[in-house]
């Protein structure tokens, strides 16, 4: 056999082999795309269903509720009684007061606790096993608190603040119980924000002769601020939408609160009363619409702040 023949034979063989492989490959490729398309369709479908459910719920409340919402509805107080007549002015004010008071209690406590946990009591710096144990216990506590059903906080608030401490059904009792409810959220979001601050900032500041507290105050907290604010806004939303805690700590008075010892009802609580104890379902829908709009606005605020954070992170990595 001469050389040319041999080469020809080899090359034809090689050619048929590649042909076979490519046939198989093409089939496999088609199959892969089929799988991908099927998966994408499923994902797309679940997205669609989620949005649809959301639209139906919100749409239903809006369609039924928006016609009820007008200036009069927002600015007159509820009449009380079984009729459910009147507006929602006092409940808006109560909600606002409660959010402010709760934040006033929970924000300093939560941020303080988070700063302590991240900046002072980081496990790797602790020497004694007892302190380590305590810190682990606190972490466990915070995580457990975050998962506890809100009515438990309500019950606790009722027993401690309403009865034992004789604060009665009042804004004070409500905001103290509400603070317990949102503390875990604030602590955890603040902890995350603090941990996201690069260690090089801490080292840079300490190396310039700053104390640990100066470092926290002047470098770490300002850098973590957007994250902390996100946590605060999220917990504000939690207070606005919470019902169970305030059902057992705030009473249900529809009158305008005059001091921190006044009882009251928030928007969500009013909605609950309207739906359960009156026939004014259209008023309930109107209240619901206002509530939903408030929550949507709070979420938009969260989005806005998060975007600002991303922008900052982006600048810093340049």
């Amino acid at each position, binding site marked *: 056999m001469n050389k040319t023949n041999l080469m020809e034979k080899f090359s034809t063989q090689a050619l048929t082999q590649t042909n076979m492989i490519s046939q198989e490959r093409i089939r496999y490729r088609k199959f892969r795309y089929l799988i991908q398309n099927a998966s994408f369709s499923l994902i797309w479908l679940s997205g669609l269903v989620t949005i649809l459910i959301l639209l139906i719920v919100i749409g239903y409340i809006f369609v039924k509720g928006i016609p009820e919402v007008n200036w009069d509805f927002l600015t007159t107080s509820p009449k009380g009684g079984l009729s459910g007549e009147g507006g929602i002015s006092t409940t808006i004010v109560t909600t606002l007061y409660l959010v402010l008071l709760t934040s006033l209690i929970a924000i300093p406590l939560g941020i303080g606790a988070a700063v302590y946990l991240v900046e002072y009591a980081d496990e790797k710096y602790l020497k004694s096993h007892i302190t380590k144990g305590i810190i682990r216990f606190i972490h466990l506590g915070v995580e457990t608190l975050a998962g506890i059903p809100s009515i438990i906080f309500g019950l606790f608030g009722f027993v401690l603040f309403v009865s034992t401490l004789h604060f009665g059904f009042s804004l004070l009792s409500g905001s103290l119980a509400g603070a317990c409810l949102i503390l875990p959220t604030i602590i955890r979001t603040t902890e995350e924000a603090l941990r996201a601050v690069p260690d090089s900032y801490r080292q840079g500041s300490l*190396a310039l002769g700053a*104390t640990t507290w100066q470092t926290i105050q002047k470098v770490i907290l300002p850098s973590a601020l957007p994250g902390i604010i996100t946590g605060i806004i999220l917990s504000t939303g939690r207070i606005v939408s919470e019902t169970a805690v305030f059902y057992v700590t705030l009473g249900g008075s529809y009158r305008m609160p005059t001091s921190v010892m006044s009882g009251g009802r928030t928007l969500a609580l009013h909605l609950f009363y309207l739906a359960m104890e009156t026939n004014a379902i259209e008023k309930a829908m109107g209240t619901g619409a206002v509530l939903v709009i408030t929550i949507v606005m709070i979420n938009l605020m969260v989005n806005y702040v998060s975007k600002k954070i991303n922008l900052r992170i982006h600048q810093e990595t340049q």
Partner: protein
Amino acid sequence: MNNIILETIEYSVYYGKYQALENISMQIPINKVTAIIGPSGCGKSTFLRTFNRMNELIPGVSVGGKALINNENIFDMDVVSLRQRVGMVFQKPNPFPKSIFDNVAYGPRVNGIKDRNVLTELVEKSLIGAALWNEVKDDLTKSAMALSGGQQQRLCIARALAVQPQVILMDEPAASLDPIATLHIEDLIRNLSEKYTIVIVTHNMQQAGRVSDYTAFFYTDQSRTGKLVEFDNTRTIFTNPKDSRTEDYITGRFG
């Protein structure tokens, strides 16, 4: 070698049970550039961070022997005032996410200077000292994050200068910079040595040769414990080292 500012006497460092540095006795002269060279993991940075006690941020660290600044024991001093006397520049530029002005004014401010005029003057002086003034003087309110890597590193040097330290520690200050920015930093180090004592850790032997007056060669074997092999005039270290390990390292036979 008169005029010693920093000194260690039989100085050792342990991370838990592991010994990172063993019996280092060395004297660093005032207003000179002292380079510390050696292979990775030989304890150069650990040694450098002795002088502003940054090692204490690492959990489980303990030391033996003595480390002195102006004949005062570093470990007896108030750590905050020590760090005002001994500034530091890190490997990666680490400006704060603040304006250029606020970055440089940070050190003086935490040390209690509030007078705006004094701060303005200090900031200008420091930026001139760090050879950055001409590039940034038009807008000191600009974010430090918008500067280039080399400019950020010079800003960090200016930030250290603003505290008016006696010593500046530099931990591979040009390791993350391009050659031109590196050149700027090296020129700057030469100029700064007129007024400041500079101790620089570097991986780059040419750099040590270019910028330093004295060079210390650290080395480690399988034990991973760093030891000082040789400390001398930079010229002597590079042309006529006494220890064969120094010679091998300088000539690039290992490391």
